[in-house]
């Protein structure tokens, strides 16, 4: 998928995220909107996994360490055909496997996550298995920034570099907000690039809501031979909807009818802008 198509997908995905959260009356709105561009680029331009290859030993693996932003993952997996879109209507309903954090009961999901600080260790294990077996697949995981205060992350970080896992790609959704406020006020994380660099990661920074920049960054992994790659993706929590962007309160706020209508209106405007730009480019 080219960059223009990816940009349009992001608008569509944001609409789906808001729609399913609104319908379920539950969900992590801000975080799903901040990481959706990352998931969009991964599943549409990077990962070699499809519903047909979901059991292949050579498939790329994705672990959603920031499991609370599951609506973003469900949205992309539905679009990729891992399950019918209609199943998303059961989000958080009684008896549904589409619970508020990822589980392997849902096709396409590699590992149950939701308790923070777990994904990187599991990804290290998967990447290590590839090295031991001489397989060429890569393992990707997205961590939230608030999650990085979990000590287990740093245990895993040590092992990722100790074993020189250059088939491991770690993305940090750096939206600078967590449930109770600014990450730097809750517990200082910066300088994140220096910290992960000191642990032995090859670090790059990117605008994590710019699909073209993300695609370009992923095309360059591994960033250094013999080192795990760490993509510090600077994002905006709630990205794409003006009144949700960068607002602590929208961590798991569900839009009211009026807010939902306004959000859909903003996405329609984004789509029109995309059309205008696309037509301009095509005709120039």
């Amino acid at each position, binding site marked *: 998928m080219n960059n223009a198509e990816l940009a349009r997908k992001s608008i569509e995905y944001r609409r789906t995220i808001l729609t399913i959260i609104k319908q379920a009356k539950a969900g992590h709105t801000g975080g799903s909107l901040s990481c959706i561009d990352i998931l969009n680029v991964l599943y549409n331009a990077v990962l070699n996994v499809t519903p047909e290859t979901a059991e292949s030993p050579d498939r790329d693996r994705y672990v959603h360490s920031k499991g609370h932003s599951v609506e973003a993952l469900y949205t992309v997996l539905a679009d990729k055909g891992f399950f019918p879109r209609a199943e998303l209507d059961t989000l958080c309903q009684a008896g549904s496997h589409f619970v508020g954090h990822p589980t392997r009961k849902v096709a396409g999901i590699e590992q149950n996550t939701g308790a923070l600080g*777990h994904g990187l260790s599991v990804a290290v*294990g998967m990447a290590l298995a590839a090295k*031991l077996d001489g397989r060429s697949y890569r393992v990707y995981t997205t961590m939230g920034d608030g999650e990085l205060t979990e000590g287990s992350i740093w*245990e895993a970080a040590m092992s990722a570099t100790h074993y020189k896992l250059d088939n491991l790609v770690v993305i940090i959704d750096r939206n600078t907000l967590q449930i109770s406020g600014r990450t730097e006020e809750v517990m200082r994380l910066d300088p994140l690039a220096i910290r992960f660099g000191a642990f032995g990661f090859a670090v790059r920074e990117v605008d994590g809501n710019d699909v073209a920049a993300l695609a370009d960054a992923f095309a360059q992994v591994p960033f250094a031979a013999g080192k795990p790659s760490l993509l510090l993706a600077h994002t905006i929590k709630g990205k794409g909807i003006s009144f949700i962007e960068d607002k602590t309160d929208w961590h798991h706020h569900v839009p009211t009818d009026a807010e939902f209508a306004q959000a859909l209106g903003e996405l329609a405007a984004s789509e029109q802008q995309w059309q205008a730009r696309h037509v301009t480019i095509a005709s120039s």
Partner: protein
Amino acid sequence: MSQLQAAKPNQQIFADTLLTLAQADPSILVVTSDSRGSGRLVEFGRQLPNQIVEVGIAEQNLVGVAAGLAAAGKRAFAISPACFLTARALEQIKNDVAYSNQPVVLVGISAGISYGALGTTHHSLHDYAVLQAIHNIDIVSPADNLETRAAVEAAVRHTRPLYLRLGKKAMADLHPPGTQFQIGKALSLREGSDVTFIATGETVLPAYQAMEELVENGVDAGVISLHTLRPLDTEAILAAARRSQVLVTVEEHSVNGGLGSSVAALLMQAGIYRPLRIVGIPDEYTYTGSQAQIFAHYGISPSGLAQTARTLLAAAAVTA
């Protein structure tokens, strides 16, 4: 009293058996948290350096990495002292292994009060309780070398998450050679109409010796090695309850939430009421000393268990 044949520590049998199996199956991996020495896996690491993964003293990462390896098709054995494995890494066990259904074999070594005088930091008296409250992990605690060898062989083939609990004391052979072992099927060492000891792990040995002492003195005593706490062999327990006047459970664990609690709940709900004593480590600041001294203090000894059985039988006779 019969002379039991002295044997090796179960941990040694575990390491020897796993090495043999891993030589034939390269998918078997050992994952350790600076625990290859205490796990008697130095030789394993020497012979199969590509089948041992070291994560350092980092139990959470130990279990998470093992789950990732299992997800990628490896038979991962995550090995760490039981006290740390099942407390420090409990959330990883719950989510990354059990809930995610990754068939990791978690091996808790030096379990229970194996570390004796090192103190409560190094004791695991909670592991049955916490793991029994987590869905989708089987729990096996072998009594002797034969059970251990068979349990490791079964663990390699096991398709569900499994917790294998091992001690480090030299054991004695309890079962005749050729005894068939199956996860979830208790092994009866002797049937008795007066009392049955239902014991697990390293406490089966003193229960067996207590049985011998009682039998010599005219009490018809039996012993079951209940090596699997989950799935619980309810048939074997109910059969023992039906044939015996009284029951004594024995475990190297807190008396809360372990084998005794499971047996009591089973019997009550089956409507089979028998006088029962749950012998284990009581809910108190644990007495200090070696494993043998702590066992003796709490009556987990041949004489202590025989006395418990006699007292229980006497009380039952009065009530009757």
